[in-house]
């Protein structure tokens, strides 16, 4: 056992750190209210998009936008531990990085796409020129995803799409829908689903904003009205989309903003150090000390799950339990950290961004709202527990 990074890992960590410090726009942390684990406060939804574009281009030049990809496809060919190191540092600095195309779409195409599709799509994704949004959920298909109703019907060389998708995070700032649609309604639900890419600019696509409870426009409902898509946009084989989507879940395992928890905790701790109550710093109050220590402990446990998952992937082991636990645990942490922050800050906690008296740029009240999304998005906590129990512990199906 050795919990230290080896020389190569340590050198890479330093390289990532110095890159971020050099290239991230000045005062970046004051320009976004990103809360770790949340989906509603991503910096993409702020008025800093051109700066994000520049930063992403520089990441792309190093192959770091697609760090997990092999060099052949424009990636950096890094080990899972190195990817984890990268995500840890990036999230610590709240740096904008990958999205659906680089994290899910590209890797899926690599596994199941035709050679032609790989040639057409992978370089564009690696350069950051083809960004995807996840067109999975529908108004009547949330946790029961296989029940989707959006239809894709063949018509010559095309498919005609009709239906509605919802919770399309970043659909309005992306280029393509990474979509599952029903191509065969006469078989078991998960056997009639096809995975494909749909251009946002296609005729018949209507993107309507949904305001989240943080007050930002992060997700959308998207309507598809007789939208024509060339069949060559089908990933892999028709009717096998469900299987591809399940495999693709593996690619998201290390995309946990682990460093963001640490950073946010440090800021809340700093606040407690500098804030006096009855002439004493808050950090002298035993109850506050206990709460902060409890957070430090949980963050350290979360880090253990994080490194363990990366290490297992490098060993060729399948982190079934570990990956779901990592998601479950860190999203709960997101909520606990927000609550701790609010408790430490008392009356100042609820002061939102740009308020005259706001502290920590109003990140904590934003997080208090955004952490709600953490336990729901990308498989609710209950779905994670189902996976752990049935796939991990072998308990029988309900």
């Amino acid at each position, binding site marked *: 056992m050795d919990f230290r990074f080896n020389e190569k890992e340590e050198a890479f960590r330093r390289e990532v750190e110095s890159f971020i410090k050099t290239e991230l726009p000045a005062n970046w942390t004051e320009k976004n209210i990103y809360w770790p684990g949340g989906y509603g406060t991503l910096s993409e939804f702020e008025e800093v998009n051109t700066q994000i574009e520049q930063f992403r281009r520089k990441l792309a030049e190093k192959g770091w936008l697609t760090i997990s990809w092999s060099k052949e496809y424009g990636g950096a060919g890094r080990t899972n531990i190195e990817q984890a190191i990268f995500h840890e540092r990036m999230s610590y600095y709240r740096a904008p990085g990958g999205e659906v195309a680089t994290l899910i779409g590209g890797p899926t195409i690599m596994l199941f796409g035709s050679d032609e599709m790989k040639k057409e799509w992978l370089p564009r994704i690696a350069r950051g020129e083809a960004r995807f949004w996840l067109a999975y959920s529908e108004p009547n298909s949330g946790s029961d995803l296989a029940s989707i109703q959006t239809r894709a019907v063949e018509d010559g060389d095309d498919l005609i799409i009709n239906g509605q998708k919802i919770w399309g995070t970043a659909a309005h700032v992306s280029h393509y829908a990474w979509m599952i649609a029903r191509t065969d309604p006469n078989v078991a639900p998960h056997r009639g689903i096809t995975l494909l890419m749909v251009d946002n600019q296609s005729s018949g696509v209507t993107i309507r904003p949904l305001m989240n409870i943080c007050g930002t426009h992060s997700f959308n409902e998207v309507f598809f009205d007789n939208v024509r898509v060339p069949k060559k946009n089908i990933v892999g084989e028709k009717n096998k989309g469900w299987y591809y989507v399940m495999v693709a879940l593996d690619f998201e395992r290390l995309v946990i903003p682990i460093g963001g928890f640490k950073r946010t905790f440090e800021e809340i701790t700093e606040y407690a150090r500098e804030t006096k109550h009855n002439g004493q710093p808050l950090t002298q109050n035993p109850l506050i000390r206990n709460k902060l220590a409890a957070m430090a402990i949980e963050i350290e446990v979360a880090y*253990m799950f994080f490194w363990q998952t990366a290490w297992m992937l490098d060993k060729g082991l399948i982190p079934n339990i570990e990956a779901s636990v990592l998601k479950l645990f860190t999203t709960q942490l997101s909520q606990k950290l927000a609550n701790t922050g609010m408790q430490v800050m008392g009356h100042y906690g609820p002061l939102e961004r740009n308020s005259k008296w706001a502290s920590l740029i109003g990140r904590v009240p934003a997080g208090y709202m955004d952490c709600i999304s953490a336990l729901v998005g990308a498989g609710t906590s209950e779905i994670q527990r189902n996976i752990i*129990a049935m796939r991990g512990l072998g308990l029988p199906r309900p």
Partner: protein
Amino acid sequence: MDLGLTEEQEMLKTSARDFLQKECPKQLVRQLDESDTGYSPELWQKMAELGWIGLVFPEKYGGSGGSFLDLIVLLEEMGHNILPGPFFSTVILGGLTIMAAGDEEQKKEFLPKIAGGKMLLTLALTEPSASYDASSVKTQAVGTDGYIINGTKLFIPDANIADHILCVARTKKEKKPEDGTTIFLVDAKSPGVKCTLLKTLARDKQCEVIFDNVSVPQKNILGKLDQGWPIVKQVLQKATVAKCAEMVGGAQAALEMAVQYAKDRVQFNRPIGSFQAIQHYCANMVTDVDGARFITYKAAWKVSEELPADMDIAIAKAWTSEACGRVTLLAHQIFGAIGFTMDHDIHLYYRRAKAGEIMFGDGDFQRAIVAQELGL
């Protein structure tokens, strides 16, 4: 980064699990729990022959020269099988202290006997104030050539069967309570040593030990006069991590038992493990067990590598204490009424989880250390 056990450690783990399952069935556990000595001399000899007792002692003192991490692997399995007996007190509290502070003569005299299963030890630190800081050491040792010890030690594990008791006593009144404490090797049969077994929830054999004018020769000082505290602190750290490893093993066993029961027990014409309420309990349990294990091994690795580990140890103990409490409680919930019977085994784990939580400081105690280490 390498987060796996070595091949040797995997082998130790497997062979320990097999051996304990065979040699220490629950029937024996219960019998020993209710006995006054709390251990089986035959089993103790077998463990000595396997090299377990001297696992971390250097080879020249009859040991196997294993690492602290090896010991942690073994302790996890002992916790898994809830092995009763004086392994913890003899090896961790006694043996490691002698290894850390003993002179050559003391090491030569004690370590081979311990490793061979011929001598039992314990450490008498805590007193009725029930705290682990230096200021709580009120027991006094007075003298110049030989020493006379007077005082009451409380919550001392296995003192009732120990051949020697390592007694932490105050030898000098100093401004800082850390200064002026000394560790004495006291023969448990010395006149004036009075040991009373306490009946505890987990039937761990904790004792009251009264030192009434106990005479100890100078040569029985372990380490340096008045400078015992750094040694005590070092041993406490190792003991704290070691206790975490035992607890992780116990929680793992409770999880396995509960999951198996959830698969077997049928109600409403189907296994109760098919109900999501039960499945989610199990998912929460595995989250707690794995988290506790990872965080314990990180602390153990740091101790094993002799890296600064104050923060890691406190984190591990705070988390593991509470996580293992939650796990055994949920296990009880899954077992329902049958788990509330003496005949069932799960309560043995529930009791030990509580005992482990309290030993060497609970969550609140450890969080205070974490806060301090954070520089708050």
